[in-house]
Each structure stands twice: as structure tokens, then as C-alpha cells.
């Protein structure tokens, strides 16, 4: 069952909702505003009754897979259980109804929460201070690079290059470019880890920073991280940690101790704030002492008991977002940390690693494992071994959907052909992992016996594989003015 668009369900004469009346004597807009300041054509919003609207969105919801109902082994995304208590906490009127421009004296509780969260995050990653402003991981990467750049400027250095491993997530090079850096790619070695030789050859006085995630996107811990740090620092460059993989080692080790100078964290991965179908998240950035002066303003400071927002930060890179970040997400993450505690977070990472290795073991004879284990919290397999049957990673992904599982991340990282990146997280039971492995085994068997049939999956979902190529062609036609169908939005037939 698919669902029509709200615009298609709309009917011209449906009553608008009951709303308050003005109940004051005052002019209407048309009385006082110049004609040409007024809107000419009413916006084409749908007109529906509340019961129709609620059913519409209820049906849309039922078309989604989600952690609430499905195993979601999406590598690099840490799709773990989102505690319902977090949602209750964020909904408290004492948080949800606060105006950002209230006097500080009236939001001491909120500032205290931000203060404690910053402390906790610093303790987990081993840094001195953190900013909670960035709205997501990529935003945090860029914020960190801005700080590194400002720091180097302050020391009269102009470093123009940022090194990024070939296995890095796309946001890394993009964030570097956005901050005005040249991106220099560092190669991975045969063992899936960064090649020290290549790194050394790319390092230079121009190098501002090396962006690294550890374990890397192959789920492998960079064994030589201390040598890497030494190398990088010896050239006066800084080391940046992409925290997307932090779930691998909370309580086991810390980026700060590894030598990282700046670290972003994805609260919507490691700290269970929900992904929301694509956000909102939160990407706080923690930094070592030398970068603290450059943190975005305001920071939260404790001055004799009172908490205040400190805007007077002469060396700050300024603001990276309005107000104080995604506060509602900070509440959720803090609630989670309180409930888990240091003991819980440590066990969570250990379970995440154990589950990944267990699942990897179950699948090692069915899919190619390009690198030796043990892995950390995720692993990357390859469907390369099935190519001669004409079966690709994408086919495995779609076949899994028909078996009530969401698909792993596929074709990332780019360094592995036909990559299938699996991250089970600590909140999936052994029974679920066993069932998933069983499903993969069946699909691989099917690939051997009847590869063609895999190309027709998924069959059980509201729609089959969608023709993105045809869609792209139609979009191009529109963008080139050869068609009036925008494809990227609904348009009323009569328009």
C-alpha cells in the first residue's frame, strides 16, 4: 500500500482549523501595508481535516523501517536503541518552553545541564573543554578546523593543507574544503590502516591537520596511532578526531590520550539521541587546552556558583550556529549518560565490539572479509566474491529488506569494492544477530543458485526498486528547461 501526497488528498473547500480570533481593534494588513508588499497568490498548501492528516502521517510512518521495529546494521551510523526516557526528559516544559533570550538567572538549570554534559563528554574523550554549538558531525568537523586554523594563525603560521585518508567519510574532505583548505589524500595500506610511509610523504610545513577516525571506517583500530600522532605533531600540524566511531571504545581508551587535539562527537550516534530520519543531531567538539581560547562563543562558565554564558572571548572563531546548539538533543544525551554512568558506557562499547566480532565470525565464510580481525565496533565485508554471479552489494542490501532487516551501509568506504559495512551496536541481541546472519547466508545461497531473482528484490515492500536513473534524467530535463515537471516537488496539475 502506498499513500497519496497530502496535496493529492486536499479538497478546495475543507474548513480551515479553528484558531483564536484577534479580539482587538486593530488594522488588517491590507489597510496599512502597500499593495506591492502584499502576497498576490495564496500558497498552495493542502486543505485537509485533522483526522485525514493524522491518518496520512500514520500511514507514512508505517512505510518506514526503523530501529523501533527493525535491526538497522547501518555501518558508521551507530543505530542503537533510543531510550524513551530521553524523549520524556527533552519534553519537560522546564526545557522545551525556554526562550533562548531569557535572562541567565532564569535558565540556571539548563546551563547546569550544558555544563555537566560538557564535563562528561570531556571525560569520555579526554580533552579539556568542549563546545556544544555544532548541530551535527560535519558541522563539528568544520568548527574544529576553523579553530585549528585560528590557532595556527595566532601563531603566525599559514598552513593550507588538510590530510584526509582515502577511507574517510565524505564530510571530512568537504569540511576541510569549506574551511578553505586544500585536501590531500592519504592512502590506506594493505592492512586497511593508514600507510605511515604515505602519511610521511604527504606531511609538510603546509599541513594544518590530519583528520582521522579511529577505529577507521573499516572498523580497524589504527595500531600505530601513537606514531601517527608523533609524526603529525612533529611537523607542527594538529590531529583531528572524527568521533563517528567513538562507540568503539568508551571507557577503553580516549582520543585525547592518543594525541588528538580536537574531537567531534555525534550525540546522535554514540549518545542515543534519535536520528529522526536524518536529524536533528548534535556534534559537540572537544579540544585540548591550546585550542580552548578559540572555542565558539558563548561558552558556559561557572562563576562563584552562578553559571553564565561567556561572550567575551577575543580569540573565538565566533558563532557557528544561532543560540546554543541543539539544546533538546543535549538534554537527551545528558539523560542517557546519567543512566548509563561510566560503568554502563564502558560495557556498552565492549558489547558493541563483541557483537561486531561475533557477527563477522558468523559471516566470514559467506562474504569476503578483505581485512583480518579482530574488528572494533563494526566491520566491512565485500560482495566481491559474488560478482561473477552478477550479484552486487546492492542486491544483498535489497534482499535483506525483504527479510525485515534494514541494510548495512554499502559502497562505503570507497577503498573496498562492493563494500558491505555492518555495525550491529550493543543494543541488538544475540538472537537478532543470529537471525541476520542466517538471512545473509540464505541470500548468498540464493545468489549462487538463482542470482537473477535477487535483482527483483525487494518484493514485499510498498514499492520495488525505484529507477533513480530515469528520475535523474527527468530532473535534468527540468533543470535545463526542457520540461516543466520539477520532479523535486509536487506541482498542481492545473498549474
Amino acid at each position, binding site marked *: 500500500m502506498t499513500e497519496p*501526497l*497530502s496535496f493529492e488528498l486536499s479538497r478546495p473547500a*475543507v474548513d480551515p482549523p479553528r484558531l483564536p480570533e484577534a479580539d482587538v481593534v*486593530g488594522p488588517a*494588513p491590507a489597510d496599512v501595508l502597500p499593495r506591492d508588499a502584499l502576497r*498576490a497568490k495564496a500558497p498552495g*498548501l*493542502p*486543505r485537509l481535516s485533522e483526522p485525514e*492528516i*493524522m491518518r496520512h502521517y500514520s500511514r507514512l*510512518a*508505517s*512505510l*518506514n523501517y*526503523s*530501529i523501533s521495529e527493525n535491526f538497522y546494521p*547501518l555501518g558508521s551510523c551507530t543505530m*542503537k*536503541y533510543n531510550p524513551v526516557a530521553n524523549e520524556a526528559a527533552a519534553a519537560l516544559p*522546564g*526545557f522545551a*518552553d525556554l*526562550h*533562548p533570550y531569557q535572562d541567565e538567572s532564569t*535558565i*540556571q*538549570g539548563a546551563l*547546569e545541564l550544558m555544563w555537566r554534559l560538557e564535563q562528561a563528554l570531556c571525560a569520555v574523550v579526554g580533552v579539556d573543554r568542549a563546545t556544544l554549538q555544532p*548541530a551535527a558531525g*560535519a558541522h563539528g568537523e568544520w568548527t574544529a578546523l576553523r579553530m585549528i586554523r585560528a590557532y595556527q594563525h595566532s601563531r603566525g603560521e599559514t598552513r593550507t593543507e588538510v590530510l584526509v585518508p582515502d577511507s574517510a567519510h565524505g564530510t571530512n574532505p*568537504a*569540511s*576541510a574544503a*569549506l574551511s578553505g583548505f586544500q585536501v590531500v589524500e592519504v592512502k590506506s595500506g594493505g592492512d586497511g590502516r593508514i600507510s605511515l610511509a604515505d602519511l610521511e610523504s604527504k606531511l609538510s610545513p603546509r599541513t594544518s591537520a590530519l583528520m582521522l577516525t579511529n577505529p577507521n571506517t573499516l572498523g580497524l583500530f589504527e595500531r600505530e596511532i601513537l606514531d601517527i600522532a608523533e609524526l603529525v605533531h612533529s611537523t607542527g600540524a594538529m590531529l583531528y578526531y572524527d568521533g563517528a566511531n567513538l562507540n568503539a571504545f568508551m571507557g577503553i581508551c580516549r582520543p585525547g590520550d*592518543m594525541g588528538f587535539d580536537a574531537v567531534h562527537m555525534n550525540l546522535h550516534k554514540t549518545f542515543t539521541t534519535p*536520528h529522526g530520519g*536524518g*536529524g*536533528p543531531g*548534535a556534534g559537540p567538539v572537544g579540544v585540548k587546552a591550546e585550542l580552548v581560547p578559540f572555542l565558539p562563543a558563548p561558552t558556559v562558565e561557572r562563576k562563584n556558583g552562578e553559571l553564565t554564558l561567556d561572550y567575551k572571548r577575543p580569540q573565538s*572563531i565566533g558563532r557557528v550556529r544561532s543560540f*546554543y*546548539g541543539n*539544546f533538546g*538533543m543535549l538534554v537527551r544525551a545528558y*539523560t542517557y549518560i*546519567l543512566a*548509563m554512568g561510566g560503568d554502563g558506557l*564502558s560495557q556498552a562499547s565492549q558489547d558493541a565490539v*563483541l557483537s561486531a*566480532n*561475533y557477527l563477522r565470525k558468523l559471516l566470514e565464510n559467506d562474504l569476503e572479509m578483505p581485512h583480518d580481525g579482530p574488528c572494533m565496533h563494526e566491520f566491512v565485508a565485500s560482495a566481491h566474491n559474488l560478482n561473477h554471479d552478477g550479484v552486487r552489494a546492492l542486491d544483498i542490501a535489497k534482499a535483506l529488506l525483504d527479510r525485515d532487516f534494514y*541494510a548495512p551501509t554499502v559502497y562505503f568506504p570507497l577503498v573496498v569494492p562492493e563494500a558491505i559495512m555492518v555495525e550491529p551496536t550493543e*543494543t541488538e*541481541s544475540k538472537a537478532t544477530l543470529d537471525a541476520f546472519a542466517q538471512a545473509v547466508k540464505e541470500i548468498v545461497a540464493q545468489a549462487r543458485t538463482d542470482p537473477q531473482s535477487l535483482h527483483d528484490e525487494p518484493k514485499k515492500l510498498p514499492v520495488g526498486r*525505484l*529507477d533513480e536513473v530515469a528520475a535523474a534524467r527527468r530532473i535534468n530535463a527540468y533543470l535545463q528547461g526542457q520540461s516543466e515537471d520539477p*520532479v523535486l*516537488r509536487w506541482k498542481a496539475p492545473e498549474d
Partner: protein
Amino acid sequence: MPYLVHSPEDRSAMLEAVGVREMNDLLVDIPQSLRLESLRLPDGLSEFETMAQVAALAKRNYVYPDRLTFRGGGIYRRFIPAAVAAVTSKPEFYTAYTPYQAEASQGTLQAIYEFQTLIAELTALDVANASLYDGATAVAEAAMMAYVHTGRDEVIVSGYVHPEYVQVLRAFSEGRGIKVRKGGEPSRKTAAVIFQQPDFLGLLVDARGLTNAAHDAGALAIACVDPISVAILAPPGEYGADIAVGEGQQLGLPPSLGGPHVGFIACRRELVRKLPGRLVGAAHDAAGRRGFVLALAAREQHIRRERATSNICTNHSLCALAAAVYLTYMGPYGLRQVAEVSFQRAHALAERLSSLPGWEPVFPERQFLSEFPIRVPKSSSVLKKLSRKGILGGLDVHRWFRELKDVLTFTCTEVNDPQAMDELLAVLRS
């Protein structure tokens, strides 16, 4: 421990299956010197104690009743239909990821497609994206678009644009080496003229004039608009602006100390390839059924990497969903009524406040919608007095604008009933 699923038995069974004796055998790649004993954090709490502690923090904040909140400055108290939270609290929506697997994500994809259409309709522009972080980063992303599109490296910020938006714009521009100029005439060096309608003080600007001036200089016109205001005011598309951006908080999201909310961006057809972030489009399966997919991904970081239009990945989908539910609930007439009620009440309030001894309008010659600046005898004491009575008075804008000493901007929406205004004036008169 909370949220963990493995029993001790499960763990040993799994270790055995992997073929190792203990957990440490799986952590061999981590240098011993880095290994921690434990985290310097207290042990976990029961849910009951956790919630008690969190609730205690919430209690340490003072919540001004919505009807007694006359402060805006970019974040507004408005009526939020219960329908909004009823939809966004559905786990199928809030526990899903970015819809990479289209067939299993039609709910999210279609909701985003509807959001894109709603924003395009509101702004009267061709195409809108799936969402951005907030209004501030939306302004910055728009400036980046203009920079890339025109190849020029200066943007002009015209008039009273939200000061925090300008700060964020500066941070973004610095990285790219873009000059941000306050005011002045656009020239051949100008990539874009950025203005806010209504502006930060609530006053109307000559959007049409600014747009034409920008175009005369070959620059783009970027309009930062209040999404409720366009139910009354000419939308960017009607006066020819190239890019419209804004903050969507008013579309069904609680203030929440400033976030999470949602930034929106829409543009003319010619600029679509420069848009940052996700775009959802319609597609069909082999059986001819319509579905929705992520489209034009070649603009994005995961494909284009350092040459992407933006680095944004996770955006603000769930907030976009809230906005979609809100706009669908309101429909064209509901939205207009919200805007008009706010307009009429704000004008009634402005008149009553102006009648107070020593209170006088600022820029009396300029029009406003539901927020307006007024000069008061002594802003700090006025606000203290109101706060003592549980009223959140106007915003003191002097902290950003030296020339606006003792100027407060007051705002009125459908939640500020006339009795609330009476209470406000009673306190001010007392």
C-alpha cells in the same frame, strides 16, 4: 545495565564463537599504554533517579507562560497543534536514519518531499531542499551558493539582519575567503545582497528594491524570511529573489532554548545544482508505482567529497516533518489567520505601548507585522519589573546595536490574548 541486551551467558557464548577467551583478546590492537581502567564518571542510575535528577534541573529554570511572552528575536511562542508531536513522536519516524534504502524509507522520503513542496509554495520559488540546521546556517549556505554561482567573493548584508545569523555568516565566509560587507551599494564584485524580511527589529524592508539593485549589479538576491509572514507579505518568488532562506521554528516547534529547529532554503531552477544538503525526488518502480528517492546526490559530500556544495550530511529531517504537519494542519487560510491575528494584536499593542509616558516608536515611518521596536525610558528596569510579575518583556537589542539604546522589540502572536496585554500594561503603568 540500562539499554544493554547481552546476558553474561550471551557474552561468553559469543566470545567462544569468536574463538577468544576474553574481551581483551578483541582489543589487542589498542596499545596497552592507552588502555583505561575506567571512565572518570559516576556509575549509572536507575531510570527513576535519572529522571528525578533531570527534572530537578528543569525545575531550576523559570518558564514564562506563552501568553505572557512578548519576546521574539527569531524564536516565538505560537500555538502548536497536538497533531505535530503526535506525528514526530512516532518511532517509525524518529528512530529511522537518513533514507538511504528508499524502498524501506518511503515514509520519511514522502514526508520530506511534501516539506520541500510546502516550502517552495510558501516562498513561491521553484525548489526547496530537505532542510538545514537553522536560519543562521541557511543564510550562510545561501551565501556560499552565490559565491560559487557568481564567482564573486563579497556579500552585502543589508539592514537589520539577525545579528547571530550575520555572525555565523562571517564564520562560514572567513573559511572561504568571502568578504561580508554591512550595507552599501552592490557592485560588480558583489555575489549577493542578503536582507531579512521583516528585519530583525520586525520592520519591513523594500525587498523588491533590494532585489532589483542586486540584479542590476549582476548579484543574487537572498531573502531571509519569516515563514509565517509570507502568508501576508509578498514571498521572495513574487519579487524575484533568487534564494529564500529562513528559520522554521515557528512552524510547530517549541522554543527549547533555541534548538533543535529547522533551516529552510529554496531557490530558482537555475540554482538547484548549487543547493546544499539532501533533495528528495519522485521516481517509479518497474511496476510503475510512484515512490521517492534521494536525488541529485552528485552535489553532496558522500559523492563529491571536497568539491561538494556543502559538507552537510545529517540535517534536520524530524523538524522538517514537524513543519510539514504544522503547515498541513493550518492550510492556506489557517496560516493566514495566524499571521493576521498576530498582526492585529501587535499593532494594538504598539499603539497602547506608545501611549505610555516616555515610550516612543523607533522608525515610526516603517511598517511592521507582529514584532516592533520601541524606545523606553530605561530598558533594564522595565524588563526587571515585568519579569518580577512573570512577564517576559521585549528584547533589548542594544546588546547588538549601539545606536539602539533602550530599544526593546515586542512581539505578539495568537497566544498573547488581549487579557495578557492588559496585564502587561497594568504592570508597566504600576
